[in-house]
């Protein structure tokens, strides 16, 4: 029988330490919605999403209420739209029409984001892929809830540098088209290497072609819980104690996600997919991954030792979480966005954290350069260079990496940008002023790396 101290511990995590289920995301295949008529395709998409996810928000809220744990976001991911629209989209505005259909459907169902306005171009772009990518800025400017992602490389295929170059330009254009709102379009656009097919977290969620017709994924969170446990029982402790404590805590957090996922999947009559066991911070006080790094013993993230501390944290979360769930997937690990984490913002403002150090940190954490505001006059080629660097880290280390930078039109280093809500606010960070233009101007792709001789 459960005892009182266990009940008090669970409820303290929920009520005081921001333990929540960050997202219940339903992945829906739209492959069977494709038609040679654009109008019919849009109609099919709206009908299929409404049929499968009509109850998503209600079920998420019901499950959350019954277990007493907040289910913060209810979201939908769909098949990469470059595939769905390939037969019927002949110009950019055709893809934008699908974007608007997705946005309208999301609003109707009450989900706050819908992801999958995506193209997977790890090795090369079809004409539909390229058309979709070129339509992204307009699609993001004309919608509210739509999220977009492009996968430009993988360990198996290498990096498509033509797509990287195009994404540098696309990000600049998305920033320009949403310049009235601090270039927020770029906050909903991620460039990946080794993108997972089953990621429930936005903005990079899409429903990969390796998935079934519909599936429910859950993303858990809880950096505040880990921080509190370390602060109360691990000060001055050795690494064994530190790691064991993180692992045990990750186990407990993930079990909540597993419970919610199974329950939600059963009520929606859709198979349970995976748990993404990520520590996803929010701008709320006490919900910060940076605070955990500080508790491990850093003055600020960015100090020497940061990469080691993050590697340790990321690995222990996985070790604890894997045991707690029957299926683990998605991005799984510690997220290190800048604008969504008060401790990271403080570190940038204190001069402790630079883009270069963040890049090193992405070698050992679960995603990449995330929610970083950069000067609006950063050249497209420099953004492409940043993407290429991240993709190379992912490709060589067989891990997912991503770039979500926002070149905020009219802003320079030292300014602050306000995105609002979960997206937070960010100090504009310095990007190296040295050019990589001639490298980015080269066409073709970087070959896949050798999989032996690991050094």
């Amino acid at each position, binding site marked *: *029988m*459960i*005892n*009182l*101290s*266990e*009940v*008090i*511990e*669970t*409820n303290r995590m929920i009520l005081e330490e921001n333990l929540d289920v960050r997202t219940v995301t339903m992945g829906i295949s739209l492959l069977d919605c494709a038609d040679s008529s654009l109008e019919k395709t849009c109609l099919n998409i709206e009908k299929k999403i409404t049929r499968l996810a009509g109850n998503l928000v209600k079920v998420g809220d019901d499950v959350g*209420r*019954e*277990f*007493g*744990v907040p289910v913060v976001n209810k979201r939908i991911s769909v098949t990469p739209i470059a595939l769905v629209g390939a037969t019927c989209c002949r110009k950019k505005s055709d893809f934008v029409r699908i974007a608007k259909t997705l946005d309208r459907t999301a609003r109707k169902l009450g989900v706050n984001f819908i992801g999958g306005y995506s193209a997977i171009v790890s090795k090369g772009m079809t004409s539909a892929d390229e058309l979709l990518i070129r339509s992204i800025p307009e699609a993001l400017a004309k919608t509210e809830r739509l999220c977009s992602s492009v996968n430009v490389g993988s360990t198996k295929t290498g990096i498509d540098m033509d797509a990287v170059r195009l994404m540098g330009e696309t990000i600049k254009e998305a920033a320009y088209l949403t310049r009235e709102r601090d270039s927020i379009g770029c906050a909903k656009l991620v460039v990946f290497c080794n993108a997972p097919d089953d990621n429930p977290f936005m903005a990079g969620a899409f429903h990969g072609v390796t998935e079934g017709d519909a599936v429910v994924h859950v993303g858990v969170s809880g950096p505040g819980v880990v921080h509190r446990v370390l602060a109360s029982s691990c000060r001055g402790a050795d690494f064994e104690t530190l790691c064991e404590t993180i692992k045990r805590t990750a186990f*407990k957090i993930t*079990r*909540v996600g*597993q*419970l919610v996922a199974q329950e939600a999947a059963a009520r929606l009559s859709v198979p349970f997919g995976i748990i993404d066991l990520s520590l996803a911070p929010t701008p709320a006080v006490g919900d910060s991954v940076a605070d955990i790094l500080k508790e491990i013993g850093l003055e600020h993230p960015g100090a020497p030792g940061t990469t080691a501390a993050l590697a340790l944290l990321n690995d222990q979360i996985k070790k604890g979480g894997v*045991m707690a769930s029957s299926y683990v997937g998605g991005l799984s690990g510690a997220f290190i966005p800048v604008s969504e984490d008060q401790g990271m913002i403080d570190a940038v403002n204190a001069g402790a954290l630079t883009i270069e150090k963040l890049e090193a940190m992405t070698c050992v954490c679960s995603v990449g350069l995330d929610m970083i505001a950069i000067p609006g006059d950063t050249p497209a080629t420099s953004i492409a260079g940043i993407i290429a660097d991240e993709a190379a880290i992912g490709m060589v280390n067989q891990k997912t990496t991503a770039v979500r930078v926002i070149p905020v039109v009219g802003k320079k280093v030292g300014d602050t940008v306000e995105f609002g809500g979960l997206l937070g606010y960010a100090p504009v960070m310095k990007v190296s002023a040295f050019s990589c233009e001639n490298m980015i101007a080269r066409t073709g792709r970087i070959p896949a790396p050798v999989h032996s001789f690991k050094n």
Partner: protein
Amino acid sequence: MNKIIITVVGVDAVGIIASVSSYLAKNKVNILDISQTVVSGYFNMMMVVDGSSSAKTFDKLCADLSRIGSDKGVEIRCQKSEIFEKMHRV
């Protein structure tokens, strides 16, 4: 079995357990276990109950108990027991 954990947290006062348990009895909710403690000056009580014979829905029980709590100046929460079992048992 529809096992629910009811927690009561707040400043101790006369009659809290009495009012919760009489409400539960009236609504055919069986109490399986009760324990209580004081944590940093706050009264913490937990009841494990079985609501499978009750005619009231889970949401209605929660709402009624929450109202009884606010009358007494304490916070009463109802949660299905699985969240605790999953988190604390392998």
